């Protein structure tokens, strides 16, 4: 199954561009190749209006300029997709996925910007006959920007006020030189699969023992393969030190019982896959909030904080126990005969604030015991 390198969801589409004969001869969206890989296919959100002619195909270009603002394609076409007739488009917006084949299956470099360009020069039509390209024209949040080719040059849509929904995919292929060989795939269902563990010694240096046959070999990864470090550090969030052993693997998967890690399994068949992100546990903190309710006051509340100091909004999960009761997922609200109580959490770039609140007739001491689980994952909100 192809893997997404970069994308901007079609759910953001709220407007469109139309192309027909005489339109700009190229129109595209810049993207980030992420972890890189062999180009598989790409999608744009397209439709036909009336009866356009010509063909639909995509180009990949190198990128120059400031990504997300003045970026434009540069140089020669790096890759050309397969094509379909414009007449084959739906009359409603739909993702149109075109494959890059043969010599056009170029390797996109990791963390490198490129342009996905629609060959609008090959679209024909006039009057009401055109091809529509979906766009987001209301404060879009794609990382790249649009560029258009006309009057002999590329022109960027600066200021990132418009973005095109798109997807760029890489191959999911596992090459023999860059990954675990099929004989060493990790699948609990295989009777001859390897069993191995990595266990650090008391000095902090991990030792690795592989108890299976020599067929479970690990070769260095190719440039498009993610690295998997199995060297633990004192803090789960910090990078491993150079003194710790590191394994460079290709795509690494661990299948669930009765499932296979091979042949493009669904994520639901896997316990782990390096193709998907994980929640990177950072810390668990307990915050105790206590206050005495005053029946003369309508609302009584308390507040606590944990300073994570990560300088970004982290993924977190919070649970709260009220007056020693069961832990419940926070935010939440509960009630008694004469009162309401609730707990809330607010995340900032440096701390997590937790609140407990009681309203109604009550004069007892209230305790809100919060458990805050913080993960290193950045919410990328601003």
């Amino acid at each position, binding site marked *: 199954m192809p893997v*997404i390198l970069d*994308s901007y*969801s079609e*759910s953001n589409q709220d407007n469109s561009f139309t192309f027909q004969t005489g339109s700009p001869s190229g129109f595209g969206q810049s993207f980030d190749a992420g972890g890189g890989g062999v180009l598989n296919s790409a999608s744009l959100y397209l439709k036909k209006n009336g009866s356009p002619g010509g063909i639909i195909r995509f180009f990949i270009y190198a990128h120059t300029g400031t990504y997300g603002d003045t970026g434009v394609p540069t140089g020669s076409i790096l890759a050309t997709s397969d094509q379909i007739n414009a007449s084959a488009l739906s009359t409603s917006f739909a993702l149109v996925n075109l494959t890059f084949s043969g010599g056009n299956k170029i390797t996109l470099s990791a963390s490198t910007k490129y342009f996905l360009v629609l060959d609008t020069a090959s679209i024909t039509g006039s009057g009401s006959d055109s091809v529509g390209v979906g766009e987001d024209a209301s*404060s*879009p*949040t794609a990382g790249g920007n649009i560029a258009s080719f006309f009057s002999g040059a590329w022109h960027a849509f600066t200021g990132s006020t418009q973005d095109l929904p798109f997807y760029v995919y890489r191959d999911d292929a596992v090459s023999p030189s860059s990954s675990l060989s099929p004989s060493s795939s*990790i699948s*609990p269902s*295989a*009777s*001859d*699969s*390897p*069993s*191995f*563990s*990595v*266990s*650090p010694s*008391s000095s*902090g240096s991990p030792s690795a023992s592989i108890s*299976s046959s020599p067929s479970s070999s690990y070769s260095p990864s190719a440039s498009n393969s993610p690295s998997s470090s*199995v060297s*633990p*550090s*004192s803090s*789960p969030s910090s990078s491993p030190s150079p003194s710790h052993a590191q394994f460079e693997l290709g795509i690494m998967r*661990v299948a*669930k019982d009765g499932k296979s890690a091979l042949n493009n399994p669904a*994520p*639901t068949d896997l*316990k*782990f*896959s390096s193709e*998907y*992100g*994980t929640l990177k546990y950072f810390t668990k903190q307990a915050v105790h909030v206590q206050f005495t309710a*005053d029946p003369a*006051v309508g*609302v*009584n*509340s308390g*507040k606590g904080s944990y300073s994570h100091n990560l300088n970004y*909004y982290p*993924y977190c*999960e*919070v649970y709260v126990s009220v007056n020693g009761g069961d832990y419940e997922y926070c*935010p*939440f609200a509960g009630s008694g005969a004469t009162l309401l109580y609730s707990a*809330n*959490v*607010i*995340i*900032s770039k440096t701390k997590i*604030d937790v*609140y407990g*609140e009681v309203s109604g007739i009550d004069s007892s001491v209230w305790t809100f015991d919060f458990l805050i689980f913080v993960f290193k*994952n950045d919410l990328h*909100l601003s």
Partner: protein
Amino acid sequence: MIHPEFKVAKIGKRADSTNPNDFIFHSDYNTFKIIREDTKQITLAASTSDQSFTVPHNQIFIPLITAYAIQSGIAQVFLPNSVNIDSWGPKLGWTSTGVRFNYVKSDATNITFNFDNSNGTTIVVSVRFFVLEVVN
């Protein structure tokens, strides 16, 4: 019968431990895979409660979703089933900005975010959502 395992122990722990909390990774236990994460920008209608917005999750199963919201111009993130807090006092409790993130849910096709906006003007919120494991 061979029971293959792949385990990575925490520092100071051994890979032959029987306590799952001694491991960074253990192949006997599922990991929550972030199958997809994305940001949805939403414009809340003025003075309107129970506003729903959907995003296709593009999965063949009903996924577990977590979501976090941030209101334009306010530097804090809030979670479903809560209001965005504007101010707080021990005897007054919290005061809301007028925006409430009621819930996030998923079905076979879509993720749904539901908000209230009691302000007399439209409010823009960005929602970061994570498509995690299968629910059904």
